[in-house]
């Protein structure tokens, strides 16, 4: 467990929870990233007025937050992708398709859904966590090297 970082995980998780809570209380919206991004792709249906700009502002913040910390803070981080290109593309397609079909991702179902004690979100969270565990079992232990 040499990579285990419980303190920064709790602090970072707390910030994610805080952002989700403020977004709901002030704007009345669920901070589900797949939903926010998906809504920007059009055909969203019921977006009116400033909704598109709100989504855009959230996404800009989502990129600007880490960018600011990367440049101006002593906290270092990496975002290391080790998968070969075809796997990156397949993974991206699956994440996009799956989160749209299942109406949510780690934030929408995992944080927001579980915080309002939604059974539907619990089922979704168990589904994607389970599939994630099995996929890593296959790629790292059964066939290896991906």
């Amino acid at each position: 467990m040499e990579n285990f970082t419980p303190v920064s995980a709790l602090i970072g998780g707390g910030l994610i929870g805080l952002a989700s809570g403020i977004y709901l209380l002030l704007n009345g919206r669920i901070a589900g990233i797949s939903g926010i991004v998906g809504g920007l792709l059009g055909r969203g249906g019921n977006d009116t007025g400033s909704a598109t700009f709100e989504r855009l502002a959230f996404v800009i913040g989502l990129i600007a937050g880490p960018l600011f910390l990367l440049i101006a803070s002593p906290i270092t981080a990496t975002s290391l992708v080790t998968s070969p290109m075809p796997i990156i593309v397949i993974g991206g397609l699956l994440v996009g398709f799956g989160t749209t079909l299942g109406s949510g991702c780690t934030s929408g179902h995992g944080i927001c859904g579980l915080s309002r004690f939604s059974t539907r979100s619990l089922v979704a969270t168990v589904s994607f966590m389970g599939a994630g565990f099995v996929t890593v079992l296959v790629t790292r232990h059964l066939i290896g090297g991906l």
Partner: protein
Amino acid sequence: MRIFVSLLCGLIFGAGLYISGMIDPQKVLGFLDIWAIADGGWDPSLAFVMGGGLIVAIPFFQFAKNRDEALCGGKMGLPTNRKIDRKLIVGGLLFGAGWGLVGYCPGPAISALAFGQTDTIIFVAAMLVGMVACRVSRLN
């Protein structure tokens, strides 16, 4: 005001992903690799991120449940769909498979664009294509 709140929440959310380490796919894959528990290589950090997130978010969500209106105006948009159907489960399984293949879920993938890496940009582009494909197929 609503746009400012959105920007602020995005900034805090992104900072949380960065500080928690979840912006790194290797950190996420280290958690999804529960099969490494046996040899001591498992990284339970993601569970602590979820835990920290829930501890802070639960009071907000429970308070919001009893309100009809958001503080900045407009209705409190809590989901009303309670259906547990095939779409929910199959969608979750497909998402989880993609998540396990690369280590990115939507939030960290978008946030990691800050690093300007080609691999991340391609993943996000494929993710957007996947979202549109699901919409166009009218399966969702």
